[in-house]
């Protein structure tokens, strides 16, 4: 067939393009339907992908398999990890000694969480201070290993990706001045809103706060906020979590799986809404589009019959209708995906804050896969919707149609 002939001045694709160009209003309903289907599906996948990517980044950064926290603060701890909402809580560090002796535990590191004051002259910003023990820490230690030029000395802090302030500049919390020596890569998780300092500097800050801050900070001796645990290769985080909860009563454990479940739960409403819209629109669109396509086909039956009289085979007619339908599906899907992407990127922070989820833009590969699957679904729907009218047209006798259509 000449449709593949590159030297042809008029081609199959030109005919498809002309048919689409010159029926703009008729095609708008189809394009809009495809845009809604692809846009909602892409949005659902984008949100899930962004949250998962963020969790993955954040958990990799923390390097911990289990986080042990006081049971009454489990929800707050989760919030600290996921969205960085500052909080302060403690439990006895006697638990730490028991945890580190458990079989299967490779490393354990205590951390103290302190929420800074918001809108006070003593504090640069409302952030989560995470005080670490440099001897035992493996979260910041691994980052320091990747950045050999940086050391964490007295009053030095390493800030999360979302904290304002250049490296070399100072930040003040509870009236105590800290010096920024490093910045972690953005993960989309709560860790982006955290400031890492040494436990001893945190104690100094607390001691000075009575004089320097508008509100005194108390960090009780012998208390910690959380214990990060790295387990031996091959050990099960769930099994060791259970053992920790047994040995150290009053604690709860957070594992990557539990965080993923939590995020999935927080996303469930919105993702089900989006998937629901996708399914509903798809379910409504297939018969609707088939109906529109059938109406268009009915209107075009004389034109199709003329093409057949001029020598078009039935397969050519089917290909013509499929190509037009696929083109509309692709145009609509791309419009929907691009619009959804613009809205999602533009309102990314608002969405993450509203849904209380960690969020980062998914990797390019994930974006391509998400966009591709939304596009594919639209094309499949377009194909299905055009099959019925194509079948109807091919059943009719062209000459009968031509004669009936005579003015």
């Amino acid at each position, binding site marked *: 067939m000449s449709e593949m002939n590159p030297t*042809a001045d008029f081609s199959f694709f030109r005919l498809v393009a002309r048919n689409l160009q010159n029926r703009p209003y008729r095609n708008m309903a189809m394009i809009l339907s495809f845009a809604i289907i692809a846009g909602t599906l892409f949005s659902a996948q984008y949100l899930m992908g962004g949250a998962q990517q963020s969790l993955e980044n954040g958990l990799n950064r923390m390097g911990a398999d289990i986080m042990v926290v006081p049971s009454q603060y489990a929800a707050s701890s989760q919030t600290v990890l996921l969205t960085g909402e500052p909080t302060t809580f403690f439990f006895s560090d006697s638990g730490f000694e028991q945890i580190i002796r458990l079989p299967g535990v490779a490393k354990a590191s205590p951390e103290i969480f302190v929420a800074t004051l918001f809108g006070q002259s003593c504090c640069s910003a409302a952030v989560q201070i995470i005080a670490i023990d440099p001897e035992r820490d493996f979260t910041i230690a691994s980052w320091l290993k990747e950045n050999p030029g940086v050391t964490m000395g007295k009053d030095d802090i390493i800030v999360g990706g979302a904290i304002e302030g250049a490296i070399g500049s100072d930040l003040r919390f509870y009236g105590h001045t800290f010096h920024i020596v490093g910045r972690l890569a953005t993960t989309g998780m709560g860790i982006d809103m955290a400031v890492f300092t040494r436990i001893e500097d945190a104690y100094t800050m607390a001691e000075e706060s009575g004089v320097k801050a508008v509100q005194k900070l108390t960090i009780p001796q012998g208390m910690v906020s959380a214990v990060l645990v790295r387990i031996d290769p091959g050990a099960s985080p769930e099994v060791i979590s259970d053992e920790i909860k047994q040995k150290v009563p009053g604690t709860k454990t957070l594992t990557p799986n539990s965080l993923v479940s939590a995020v999935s739960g927080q996303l469930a409403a919105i993702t089900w809404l989006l998937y629901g819209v996708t399914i509903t629109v798809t379910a409504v669109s297939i018969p609707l589009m088939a109906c529109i396509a059938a109406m268009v086909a009915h209107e075009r039956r004389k034109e199709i019959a003329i093409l057949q009289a*001029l020598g*078009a085979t039935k397969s050519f007619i089917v290909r013509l209708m499929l190509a037009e339908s696929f083109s509309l599906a692709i145009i609509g899907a791309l419009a929907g995906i691009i619009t959804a992407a613009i809205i999602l990127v533009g309102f990314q922070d608002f969405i993450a804050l509203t849904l209380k989820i960690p969020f980062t833009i998914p990797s390019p590969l994930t974006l391509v896969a998400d966009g591709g699957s939304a596009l594919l679904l639209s094309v499949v729907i377009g194909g299905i919707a055009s099959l019925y009218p194509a079948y109807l047209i091919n059943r009719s006798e062209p000459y009968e149609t031509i004669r009936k259509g005579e003015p």
Partner: protein
Amino acid sequence: MIVVNGVTKAFSTGSSEVRAVDNVDLRVQQGEFVLILGRSGSGKSTLLGMLAGLLRPTTGTIRIKGRDISTLSDDKMAELRSQDIGFVFQFSGLISTVTALENVMIPTLFSADGAVNRAKALELLGQVGVAERADAYPQTLSSGEMKRVSIARALVNRPSILIADEPTGDLDVDTESEIMALFRQLNSEGITIVMVTHNPDLIPCATKIYRMSHGRMVENLDSTLCLKGPKIRDEYKDQP
């Protein structure tokens, strides 16, 4: 070139059967200009549809260039239409979404020889006298211009047979004369033409004339009668 033997086309209408074409025989030699006369409903257009391979006969055979087209598959029939037969409809039959020039080029999409270039299509439009309207859309063309474009389109794959169904039915007298002159010219260039019409004024153009009535071929007129033009025309105006 075209041999029709005992062809019948019957249509079912509820419990009864209507024979639109009833046991028709017809022979068309290469280079002839055959006119089939008949009133509306006489079966002439149905016969034409079968000659063009757009309808299958209920019984009988139609041979075009020696091939029995009634046994051809749909695809082979389409191939025959694209290669050997040019079709001019009573109405313009132009595709409204493409320009006049692109309309002319459409049949080349179905031809095994591939698409002709723009220049060749323009040349054809020039031959039928509407080259300057090449980029116009059908809805902006006059009836005569549309018919000319339609003829150019029918010729683009260089068919040996041109089939025309009441090609001057919706044209004024002057345009009708111009279009028929064009058909005569094409016939003089060797293209076999089979045309159906209810208009006896066209008799002088043909080399062979048939008349159909109630689905049957009732007369085969001698071509010399064609020369008598007005007389024949007057005689046939009153025929059933």
